[in-house]
């Protein structure tokens, strides 16, 4: 086999002798792709098929009891808690991702130039996003807790009242946003840093020679070049933030009240706490449609960025 001459369907690979039927090399690409395709189908097409089926099934106490038609979807559309959770999710995602983008960019600008210890600083900034979100939740629960944390004593020492972060609706929500910022600013920082490093320096230097200040150079020259790459990070983060679950599960379980009940928590509880797989999957399918649109946007942006950095 190894001594056979190469023949491939790839047009740019010339030097192909006349094709033979059942040529191993001709089938090779398909043979290479099939196992992976099966694995992917197993975790995408099959579960989505199951989800669609479940979303049209009526479940009673965890058991399927017949067809539901569109009633699961209709119930979800009329469920005020669903819309409230969607609202909370949107609020959370927008607040967190905006803050992360701004902070990430600022951090990148701060460490773009080499200096002694820059490696250590960059590594420190990187670490929060490497560890498991559950551990992030644990860490911040240890920090926020009125019993064991340092936030309350710190505020008291500063002459302020103890905030008791997890005891109030607003503070718990803000506390969650802070956790997300701590964990995910690194991602936007890294992307911004990579983007900054890929920007050609000559135009910037020319602008400086023309007497432009650093602020003007940033907004007129750097930022426009950075935006296509930064956009990839933002959209990836948006998609990911919509599914935020682990940290909330550990920190608040959606409380107090429903202050931190993102759609992920609500759908999870509907499906697994109340074994109402029908309504749970209906919610998730609706969300999946929306997220898929975002993914399409992400793909377009990623193609552009990949073309630019390579």
């Amino acid at each position, binding site marked *: 086999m190894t001594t056979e001459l190469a023949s491939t369907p790839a047009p740019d690979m010339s030097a192909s002798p006349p094709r033979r039927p059942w040529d191993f090399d001709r089938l090779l690409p398909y043979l290479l792709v099939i196992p992976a395709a099966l694995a*992917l189908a197993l975790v995408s097409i099959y579960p989505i098929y199951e989800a669609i089926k479940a979303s049209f099934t009526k479940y009673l106490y965890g058991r399927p009891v017949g067809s539901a038609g569109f009633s699961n979807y209709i119930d979800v559309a009329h469920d005020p808690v669903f819309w409230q959770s969607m609202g909370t999710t949107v609020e959370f995602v927008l607040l967190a991702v905006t803050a992360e983008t701004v902070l990430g960019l600022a951090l990148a600008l701060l460490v773009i130039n080499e200096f002694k210890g820059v490696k250590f600083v960059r590594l420190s900034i990187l*670490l929060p996003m490497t560890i498991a979100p559950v551990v992030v939740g644990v*860490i911040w629960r240890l920090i926020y807790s009125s019993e064991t944390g340092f936030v309350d004593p710190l505020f008291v020492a500063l002459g302020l009242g103890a905030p008791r972060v997890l005891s109030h609706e607003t503070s718990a929500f803000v506390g969650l946003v802070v956790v997300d910022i701590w964990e995910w600013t690194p991602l936007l920082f*890294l992307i911004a840093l990579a983007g900054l490093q890929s920007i050609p320096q000559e135009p910037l230097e020319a602008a400086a020679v023309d007497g432009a200040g650093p602020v003007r150079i940033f907004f007129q020259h750097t930022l426009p070049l950075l935006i296509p790459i930064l956009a990839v990070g933002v959209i990836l983060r948006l998609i990911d933030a919509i599914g935020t679950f682990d940290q909330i599960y550990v920190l608040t379980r959606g409380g107090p009240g429903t202050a931190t009940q993102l759609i992920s928590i609500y759908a*999870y509880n509907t499906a697994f706490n109340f074994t109402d797989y029908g309504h749970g999957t209906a919610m998730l399918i609706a969300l999946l449609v929306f997220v898929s649109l975002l993914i399409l946007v992400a793909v377009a942006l990623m193609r552009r960025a990949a073309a630019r950095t390579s």
Partner: protein
Amino acid sequence: MGRFLKGLALVVIVICCLLPFWWLFVVSLRHRVDIFAGPAAWPTNPTTENYQALFGQYHMGSFLINSLVVVSVSVIISLLIGTPAAYALARFDLPGRLGSVGLMSALFVRMVPAILLVVPFYIALGRFGLLNNRLGLIIIYTGINTSFVIWMMQSFLAEIPKEIEEAALVDGDSRWSAMWRIILPLAGPGLAATAIFAVIATYNDFLIALTMTSTPKSQTVPVGISTLIGKIQVEWGPMAAAGVIGAVPIIIFATIVQRHFVRGMTMGAVK
């Protein structure tokens, strides 16, 4: 003055990033009574009792073994099936836009938040009797990791100049042997980085493992950590110790692949 401010800012930033880790570490070394007595910057009167409890009473040993098995098996399998596919996508023009469809579906699997798939995964595993079973977890993680391997490896392989292979083909190698003899060694560093990223992502997963498992027989480390957060009683010390155990291997791995992090997190879109 500017330099001073910048230095100050850097110190504050590093503290903000690292203090929470330090806090976790300190709590994990304190006695229960001390934890309640108030915050401390240093583990006064340190103890390993939390770690002992973790491995004695709270099954951390079996969580670690489960994580090890599930992570290593699924990552190896997904490298084995994902890398050839990535090679095919990087080197051949598959007919009928098959290539881009393949890449798109891989990307979709990778990017879709786990919460959107976890209910159908659960229903499916239940159907095949694979709930609370490491095999069930391995199957799901293999599929998800494969999507990641395809994207990352495709991006690494595309960087290897085609001329190298063409030279081999002209010399009489088959595609198959060129792939093994020439390309794979060149892709080695990329492969290693991909593997480490897949390990990190799989080891860190919580939601899928939470839903698919129910006893220490098959629960992984993150799920094990969450079981320490009872509503009735929070075991702060062991919980912190578990956090440390959960974080340490990942921090080591992350330090190794630092250079590739952007690429890993953006699926090769930004290098």
